[in-house]
């Protein structure tokens, strides 16, 4: 089966990016929007067509889905074995990601027509969106790890451009800068990881790397340092890169600030697609993680679990609705990462892997929906703070219903999709590591609580005085909401275990009720607490926060991680390293050079006196030197 046409999926947005970007001021916004959306629609259709062909028509070997290289061309030649190729790799996860990216991207394109209407930089916005879609497609279909890194950087920069979209707002500029630098910092480790990995395995190619029977996977077993093997180090370094993009603790600090960008951007990049790149990366390299570096996989599991707990706690204390969603995203990605961490390779062991991908899929749908819904709310009331909202269910019926569905989904209420994916993750954790299982269970409850806190504060609670009556968003905005709500509700019924598994073979799974029932109950408890606290104006939350004042303030200030970073960067790096280096360069290094010049000048000045122009002085020196020389010679020769 020929899949070569799949290169069109990334190429089309790229061409549109170039066109809109270069013609920026010369074309009408409507043209830009229709071009962007139209191009995306083509990619969308192609993605679904590809998925259909791949999952249902392609040739399976021994019942397993094969990795298909649809296209591959050498782009940059390093050595005979190491070269960056640009190509398209199709396997279950990349095809699934194509679906996710194209769906969310198309929805956001449509949504933005309404949301960004009348904005100065409308064309710019669409060109950046296209750039992002191009990069993200390129990332998911990467055939080798270096291609992934290339597009990894490109998504990073698109994210930077889109966060800083309102570039005249200092907070947006700061946020975009922060996002880029923090992820760049993580990417540095990614790059080092790639170098170490390629040094031991001699290849960048994913298929060679992840071939469980190949030789690459067994390389680098020797101990490097700190008791871990080279391969473990390489993979941990690579994972740090993934953690940076996926906002895992401790490199998560950019994600909440990234909410300075326009809301559709948050939905697309910072909820559904780019932030799961880290998960995707680990999934991509999963066989190596599992087979040759289980230590690294344990790190992955614990980082994920801790991040999900950490983020969930912060999310309960925030008032900015987009920030709550941002922390929620971080928490949910923590889930996916953990799921990978507790998974094994192949067969029933691989349920965590499948669950992670499943959750990635459902999360993309419902989190995008939540963000777009939040965007509709913000569009209506022009504020981000939930304290200035309330009772909006009357004004925004469609938003209200879709938002409620999304909240139920994320809370894990059956039969919505979130229930299925989260349940699989808990099952995997239950069988693998009980500590993680309990953490995740607790986080499930917290999730339900903070989501419904959000929901009740926005749509119920006391209605504040609005300056002008909020009104429902236009159809271009509500359509994506409805579409995504549909996806969020029903995607749980997709037979993921048959399609996306670690070794390509279908799994046979059934709900494990001893895990599912506690999960559902925890979720319901969370919802009920939120209902009690926030359905009507209530003083209980204040009292609780008063009683837990210390801890509350700690969580409210995001555990002071930002301050810690500020301290490290500004006080230590800027003042402790950079300023001394600047000083050192100007005064010591340059001072030495200038000193040499000064010394020359000084010498010249001091011997200038000899050259007085006084003939008699010269004469004296001449005569006495001549005599001394004569005496010296005579004594030397004759005595």
């Amino acid at each position: 089966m020929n899949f070569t046409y799949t290169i069109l999926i990334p190429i089309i947005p790229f061409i549109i990016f170039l066109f809109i970007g270069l013609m920026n001021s010369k074309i009408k916004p409507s043209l830009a929007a229709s071009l962007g959306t139209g191009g995306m629609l083509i990619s969308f259709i192609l993605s679904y067509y590809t998925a259909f062909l791949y999952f249902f028509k392609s040739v399976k070997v021994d019942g397993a889905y094969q990795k298909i290289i649809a296209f591959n061309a050498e782009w940059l030649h390093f050595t005979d074995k190491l070269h960056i190729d640009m190509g398209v790799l199709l396997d279950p996860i990349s095809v699934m990601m194509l679906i996710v990216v194209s769906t969310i991207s198309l929805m956001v394109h449509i949504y933005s027509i309404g949301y960004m209407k009348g904005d100065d930089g409308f064309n710019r916005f669409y060109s950046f969106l296209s750039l992002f879609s191009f990069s993200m497609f390129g990332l998911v279909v990467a055939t080798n790890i270096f291609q992934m890194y290339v597009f990894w950087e490109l998504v990073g920069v698109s994210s930077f451009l889109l966060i800083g979209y309102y570039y005249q707002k200092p907070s947006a500029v700061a946020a975009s800068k922060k996002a880029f630098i923090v992820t760049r910092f993580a990417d540095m480790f990614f790059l080092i990881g790639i170098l170490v990995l390629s040094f031991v395995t001699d290849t960048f190619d994913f298929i060679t790397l992840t071939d469980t029977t190949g030789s690459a996977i067994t390389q680098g077993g020797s101990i490097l340092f700190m008791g871990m093997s080279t391969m473990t180090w390489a993979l941990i370094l690579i994972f740090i890169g993934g953690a940076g993009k996926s906002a895992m603790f401790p490199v998560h600090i950019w994600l909440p600030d990234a909410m300075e960008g326009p809301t559709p951007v948050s939905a697309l990049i910072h909820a559904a697609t780019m932030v799961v790149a880290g998960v995707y990366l680990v999934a991509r390299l999963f066989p190596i993680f599992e087979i040759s570096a289980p230590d690294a996989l344990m790190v992955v599991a614990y980082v994920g679990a801790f991040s999900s707990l950490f983020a969930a706690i912060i999310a309960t204390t925030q008032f900015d609705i987009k920030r709550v969603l941002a922390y929620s995203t971080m928490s949910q990605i923590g889930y996916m990462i953990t799921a990978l961490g507790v998974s094994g390779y192949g067969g029933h062991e691989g349920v965590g892997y499948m669950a992670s991908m499943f959750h990635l899929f459902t999360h993309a749908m419902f989190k995008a929906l939540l963000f777009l819904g939040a965007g509709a709310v913000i569009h209506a009331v022009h504020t981000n703070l939930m304290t200035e909202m309330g009772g909006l269910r009357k004004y925004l019926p469609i938003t209200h219903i879709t938002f409620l569905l999304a909240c139920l989904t994320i809370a894990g209420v059956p039969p919505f999709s979130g229930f299925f994916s989260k349940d699989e993750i808990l099952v995997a954790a239950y069988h693998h590591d009980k500590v993680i299982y309990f953490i995740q269970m607790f986080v499930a409850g917290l999730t339900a609580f903070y989501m419904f806190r959000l929901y009740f504060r926005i749509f119920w609670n006391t209605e504040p005085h609005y300056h002008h009556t909020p009104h429902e968003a236009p159809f271009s905005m509500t359509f994506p909401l409805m579409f995504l709500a549909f996806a969020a509700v029903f995607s749980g019924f997709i037979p993921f275990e048959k399609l996306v598994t670690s070794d390509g073979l279908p799994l046979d799974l059934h709900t494990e009720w001893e895990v599912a029932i506690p999960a559902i109950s925890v979720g319901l408890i969370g919802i009920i607490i939120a209902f009690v606290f926030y359905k009507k104006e209530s003083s209980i939350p204040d009292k609780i926060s008063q009683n837990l004042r210390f801890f509350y303030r700690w969580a409210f200030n995001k555990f002071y991680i930002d301050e810690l970073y500020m301290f490290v960067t500004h006080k230590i790096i800027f003042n402790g390293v950079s300023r001394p280096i600047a000083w050192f360069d100007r005064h010591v290094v340059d001072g030495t050079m200038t000193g040499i010049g000064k010394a020359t000048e000084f010498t010249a000045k001091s011997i200038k006196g000899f050259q007085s122009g006084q003939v008699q002085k010269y004469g004296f020196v001449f005569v006495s030197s001549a005599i001394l020389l004569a005496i010296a010679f005579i004594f030397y020769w004759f005595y």
Partner: protein
Amino acid sequence: MEITGAQIMFYIFAAVILVFSVLTVTSRKILRAATYLLFVLIATAGIYFMLKYEFLAAVQLTLYAGGIVVLIIFSILLTSHISEKFEPISKMKTIASFLASAAGAILVSSVFIQYKFVATTKEALNVDMEIIGKSLLSYEREGFVLPFEVISILLLAAMVGAIVIAKKSDDKIINEDKIK
């Protein structure tokens, strides 16, 4: 050892030369210094006579004692007040110069005293005007026509140069003042 008249003559000349040389370089009145120089030059001419180079002695008297000293005296009259006394010279300078000169004199003298000069055994030449004139204009061996010509050109050049330098050039001076 018997003292001959020649020896007495020599000692007188030598004494005159040395005493007046010292006076020339130490006198604080410039015109006197010039006069002392004249005596030195005349005594030198005497030494030439003793060495039987009469022509040379005559040249010395006319050119040196006559010409150059007169030239010097003229320039003194043009540039200095006769009654003017020089400022005393700083002691450091005097002592340093004296030491250098004395060291040089002792060194060279000791060399001369120790060195065994060997005279040629060839027959002495009788120096008369004919030989001098022929040698000066001869271009054969023992002929000096080339240095003679060179020296004449040098004299001419010096003469022209002296005139050009000493000529008053007002505009040039003004220009230089302007530049300052």
